């Protein structure tokens, strides 16, 4: 039927009506799926009473209190004490004093956030560096038992983190790596290197061997060809792989909560511990969550063309 009517289009093109229905349903899903995220982003701008009001407030006066509470610790003081302090300094001081409190000092959020940055970038750099060499070797050379080695490399990523953490915890205690950024970097490198090898192997497989062979005929050694021909060609793949490693290390919780407690603690185990007076300080949690998630949302948009590869270890490309 449809084949007889539509001559300009292929018979397999979906009809205009089916397209419209599909568009409606997909957009509906996308909007609904964004509601929880939008809600937590909005909660960051509420006052603590607004955040726990019933019915939930969709329209509210934005307040800086969530962000102020996220970055500060506060103590309750008497009115006389607060009056004696003179005019408030800055917006945060003002909102804090309205609650009859004064700012006592900075909170731990910023150091935890910095730890997350150091550990994520450190482990990503190491994992991608190790990964690109291994991937090249697996892509170009005949390595005995290559398939078994690749399976072994991937299987290390599949292990339950808690099971791995038991011996790692004991081992780090013995060699003094407990609660250290170096320990976390090494651990995340080990987890990420498997992804890096698999992903980068896929990217390097796509670079024609002829490029290096031509370079080697021109007098480059294998190493020179690798550094001057293959690496620049693989730049996009390396960048995509690095972002995947970065996101894993940034998001990781199980190892972080078991192996770090103070000095080297990252943001994910810290955010759930943000409490105010009489329960969770939801605006501060919302603010901490927002700042923590925004970089991931940006990276997701940047990575969208490579996401499929990333989540299937390079097996599915398009």
């Amino acid at each position, binding site marked *: 039927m449809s084949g007889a009517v539509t001559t300009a289009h292929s018979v397999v093109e979906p009809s205009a009506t089916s397209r419209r229905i599909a568009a409606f349903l997909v957009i509906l899903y996308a909007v609904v799926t964004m509601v929880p995220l939008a809600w937590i982003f909005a909660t960051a701008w509420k006052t603590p009473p607004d955040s726990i009001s019933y019915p939930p407030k969709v329209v509210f006066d934005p307040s800086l209190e969530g962000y102020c509470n996220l970055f500060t610790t506060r103590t309750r003081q008497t009115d006389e004490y607060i009056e004696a302090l003179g005019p408030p300094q800055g917006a945060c001081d003002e909102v804090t004093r309205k609650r009859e409190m004064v700012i006592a000092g900075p909170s731990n959020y910023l150091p935890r956030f910095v730890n997350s940055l150091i550990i994520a970038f450190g482990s990503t750099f190491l994992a991608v560096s190790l990964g690109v060499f291994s991937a090249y070797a697996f892509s170009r050379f005949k390595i005995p038992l290559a398939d078994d080695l690749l399976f072994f490399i991937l299987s290390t990523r599949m292990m339950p983190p808690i099971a791995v953490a038991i011996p*790692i915890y004991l081992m780090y205690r013995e060699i003094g790596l407990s609660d250290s950024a170096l320990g976390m970097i090494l651990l995340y490198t080990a987890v990420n290197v498997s992804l890096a090898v698999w992903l980068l192997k896929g990217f390097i497989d796509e670079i024609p061997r002829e490029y290096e062979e031509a370079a080697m005929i021109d007098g480059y050694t294998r190493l020179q060809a690798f550094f001057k021909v293959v690496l620049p060609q693989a730049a996009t793949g390396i960048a995509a792989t690095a972002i995947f490693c970065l996101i894993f290390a940034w998001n990781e919780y199980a190892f972080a909560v078991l192996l770090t407690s103070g000095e080297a603690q990252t943001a994910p185990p810290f955010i759930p511990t943000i409490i105010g007076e009489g329960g969770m300080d939801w605006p501060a949690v919302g603010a901490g969550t927002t700042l923590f998630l925004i970089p991931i949302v940006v990276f997701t948009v940047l990575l969208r063309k490579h996401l*499929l590869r990333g989540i299937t270890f390079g*097996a599915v490309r398009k």
Partner: protein
Amino acid sequence: MPDVNAIANRVAAATPPSLGRAVRGLSDRSIAWLFVAPTIILLLAINIFPLIWTIYLSFTNYASNRPNRAVVNVGLKWYQDILGSPEVWAAMQATAHFVFWTIFFQTLIGFTLAYLIDRKFRGHAFWTTIILIPMMLSPAVVGNFWKFLFQPQIGLFNYIVSFFTGIPPSSFEMLGSVTLAPWAIVIVDTWMWTPYVMLICLAGLRSIPDYIYEAAEVDRASKWRQFWSITLPMALPFIMLAVLFRGIENFKMFDMVVLLTGGGPGSTTELASITLKRQAFEAYRTGYSSAFAIILFVVIFGLANIYVKALNRVKQR
């Protein structure tokens, strides 16, 4: 510089092969090992050595909070204890419930979404990107903020449910009720990971060449028939891939659920990884938890083996 290389090449060409390679630099074989070795060494140090240590500990009475106590070999005691422990079977049951229903809903919704997106309406790329966002977020942070949405009186989830059904929002507790909590974790996991299944299914649908549908049209196969005889069978390897990976991931689920329910109420949402964490890091039964870890390893290793086979099958297409 080119002159030096040219000379080196001429020398290399004139000398026996092995010596020639030495002149040109490292041989391919040594480069291969040089490139692979650091990765393997790191994995041996951080994964395999600890694994062997875990196997050893699983036969002993070692407790990590009493490092100076004499270590005694207990044989297979822990393995027998685990396989006979009602607590472990309860955890396995909770895990099975979680794995089954998350896979069921994610596959159903994910495949439907992929099918709809494959209608290629205007703007589908943009909306696909929006839909993908939840799966990239930190599971721990996600669990934490869903706890806020599930609050009985003030939470948005209860409010929306009561808005559509008329049930008072304080009359049910998603996280506090024994019957609802196992479904609360399924809801959050489905919210987070449906995009994953959707993306892989979409790749499967797009791998089906148009000419097959054209041939079916020529043969006057109905749309319904085309879906069951072409679309579904050809997308099936991709669906299997997604199902396997979600199965592995959810079998070892820890972070999201721990922040959402902490395993409660009671132990209704205490999944295998949470039981393991309690035994290892709260009860300090290191030997027992090592044995449990080994059992989980074996299961995951088996699943991973099947997964890699599935990966390779999809790759060949």
